[in-house]
C-alpha cells in the first residue's frame, strides 16, 4: 500500500526549546498507526507539527506532496482532521453549530447531509443534544463531538490526540469501538497518540515509540505488544 503520510527528519521547536529531534515515520493508506511514549516524548508535538501549529523543520508529505509551511487551515483543507488535545470544543456554540462550523469549507450539500447522518449513527447522543450549548456536554460527549467535527471535514487522515484522556473506561471502550468502525467504514486513515499503550496497540496496526523527541522503535502492533523489553522500558505496563 502507498504511504498516505510520510514524515522525515521532523524537528519542532517551542520558542528556543527543541521538542522533536528528527522524527521519521510513514503511515499507510487506510491504516491506523499509533505513536506511543511517556509524557514529554513528543507525541502531541508531532501531531501539532503535521498541522503546522508549532515551528517545524524537516519534511512532511501528504500523498507525496510536501505540506510543511502551509497554514494550519490549508493543511486541514487537504483532508486532515485533527482531534486536538483537550477536545477544542466551541463551548459557547450549540452542538449543531459545532458540527456546522466543521463543514464550513465544504460545498457538497448532499454529502454533508450524509456525513451528518453518519455522525448521528456513530454518536446518537449528539443528535439528542443538538440544541444544547456544547460547553455543557460531559467530557465523553465533548470527545465524541470533537471526533464528529473532524469527521464533518470529510477527512482522509485523522489525527487523534489522546481521545481517552480523562474519560471513564466504559466511555473509552465505546469511543475506540467507534474509531475502529470509522476507520473501516468511512475509510479514514488514523494517526493515534495515546498514553494508554495497551488500548492503542489493540486498535492500531502499526506503532512507533517515541522517547524525548526521537523514534526509538517501531513495528507492527502485535510485535511491539509481545516484546516484553519494550513494554517494560517504554510503555510501562
Amino acid at each position: 500500500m502507498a504511504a498516505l503520510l510520510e514524515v522525515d527528519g521532523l524537528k519542532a521547536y517551542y520558542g528556543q526549546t527543541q521538542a522533536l529531534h528528527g522524527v521519521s515515520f510513514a503511515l499507510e493508506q487506510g491504516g491506523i498507526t499509533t505513536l506511543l511514549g511517556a509524557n514529554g516524548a513528543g507525541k502531541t508535538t508531532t501531531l501539532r507539527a503535521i498541522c503546522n501549529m508549532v515551528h517545524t523543520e524537516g519534511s512532511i508529505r501528504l500523498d507525496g506532496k510536501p505540506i510543511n509551511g502551509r497554514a494550519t487551515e490549508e493543511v486541514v483543507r487537504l483532508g486532515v482532521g485533527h482531534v486536538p488535545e483537550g477536545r477544542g470544543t466551541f463551548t459557547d456554540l450549540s452542538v449543531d453549530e459545532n458540527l456546522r462550523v466543521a463543514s464550513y469549507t465544504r460545498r457538497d450539500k448532499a454529502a454533508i447531509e450524509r456525513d451528518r447522518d453518519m455522525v448521528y449513527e456513530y454518536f446518537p447522543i449528539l443528535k439528542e443534544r443538538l440544541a444544547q450549548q456544547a460547553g455543557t456536554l460531559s467530557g465523553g460527549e465533548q470527545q465524541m463531538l470533537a471526533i464528529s467535527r473532524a469527521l464533518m471535514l470529510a477527512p482522509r487522515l485523522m489525527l487523534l490526540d489522546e481521545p481517552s484522556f480523562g474519560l471513564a473506561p466504559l466511555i473509552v471502550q465505546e469511543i475506540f469501538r467507534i474509531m475502529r468502525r470509522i476507520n473501516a467504514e468511512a475509510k479514514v486513515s488514523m494517526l493515534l497518540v495515546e498514553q494508554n499503550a495497551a488500548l492503542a496497540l489493540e486498535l492500531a496496526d502499526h506503532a512507533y515509540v517515541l522517547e524525548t523527541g526521537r523514534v526509538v522503535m517501531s513495528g507492527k502492533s502485535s510485535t511491539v505488544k509481545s516484546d516484553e523489553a519494550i513494554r517494560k522500558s517504554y510503555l510501562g505496563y
Partner: protein
Amino acid sequence: MEQLIQQIASGLANGAIYACLALALVMIFVSTDHINFAQGELAMFSAYLVWQVLQWGVNFWIALPLVALASFLIGVGIERVILRPLHSAPILSVVVVFIGLLAIFHSLAGAIWGHTIKEFASPFPKVTFWGSGYIGPHQIGMIIVTVLLLLALFAFFRFTPLGLAMRAAAQNPVSARLAGIRVDWMLALGWGLAAAIGAVAGALVAPAVYLEPNMMASILLYGFAGALVGGISSPGGAVAGGFIVGVLENLIAYFGNLLEKVSGLYLIGNGEKLSVALIIVITVLTLKPSGLFGHVTVKRV
C-alpha cells in the same frame, strides 16, 4: 412628566448611536482582545465621506450604503496592512498604533474638509406625527435605522455560515483553524464590519451634532460606557448597554435639574452629562468588570 418622556425618548435616540459604536468596539474586542481607540475617528471620517458624496448630489440612501462599503474596505485594509504584521506584538504597541490611527484620521479629515463646523441635513422628512411633541423625526429615524442594522447583523451572525465561522474564529481560533476556517480573514472581516457599523452611526449622528473632526470624541466615550455596561465580551449586551447609557445620562441630568428646582441644590445637570459616562465606566469596572450581560473569563496563568 412630558419632559421626562422627552428625555427618555431622546436618550433612546442617542443610545442607538452609542449602541452602534459599542457594538463596533465589541466586534473587534471579541476576536482580537483589542479596544480600537480609533473607532470614533473612523466613524467621523465615514460621516465626512457621506457628506462629500451628498455634496456631489447623490441621495443619502445611496450615499450611506456606498460609504458603508468603502468603510468596510478601509477597515479590512487597516487590519490586513497595519495590524496583521503586529499580531504577536505586545498589547502596548497595538494601543500606540490605535492612537496613531486616531490622530491620522483626525488630521486627515481636517486637512481634506477643514476644521470648521459643517451642517449635515437630516435625511428624514420633517413631518409631524403622533408623539411629535416628545421626539423629533430625525431621532425616530436614528432609532429605526439602528434597530434595522442591529437586526440585520444579528441575522447575519446567527443564520449564515460566514457569520457562524466568524463567531467560531472569535471564540476558539485554534479549533476554528482545525475546521479549515481562515481565521486571519475572519478578523479582517470583523474590522470591516465594525468600520461599516461606525459609518452608519457617524452619518446618523452628524445631523444632530454637526460635522467636525471632533464630533465623535465624546460619543466614543459613551460608546465605551455602553460596551462596558453591557459587557465588553457580549455583542447583545453592548447594544443594550448603549441604550441604557443613552437613557441614563438624560435621566440623571433631568433629575439633577429637578433637584435644583425643588431644593436649590445644584448637584448635577446637563453640563455634567459626559462625567456621567465616565462615572458609569468607573462604577462598572469596579463593581462588575464583566458588565451586566458579559461572562467572566477565567485565565490560567
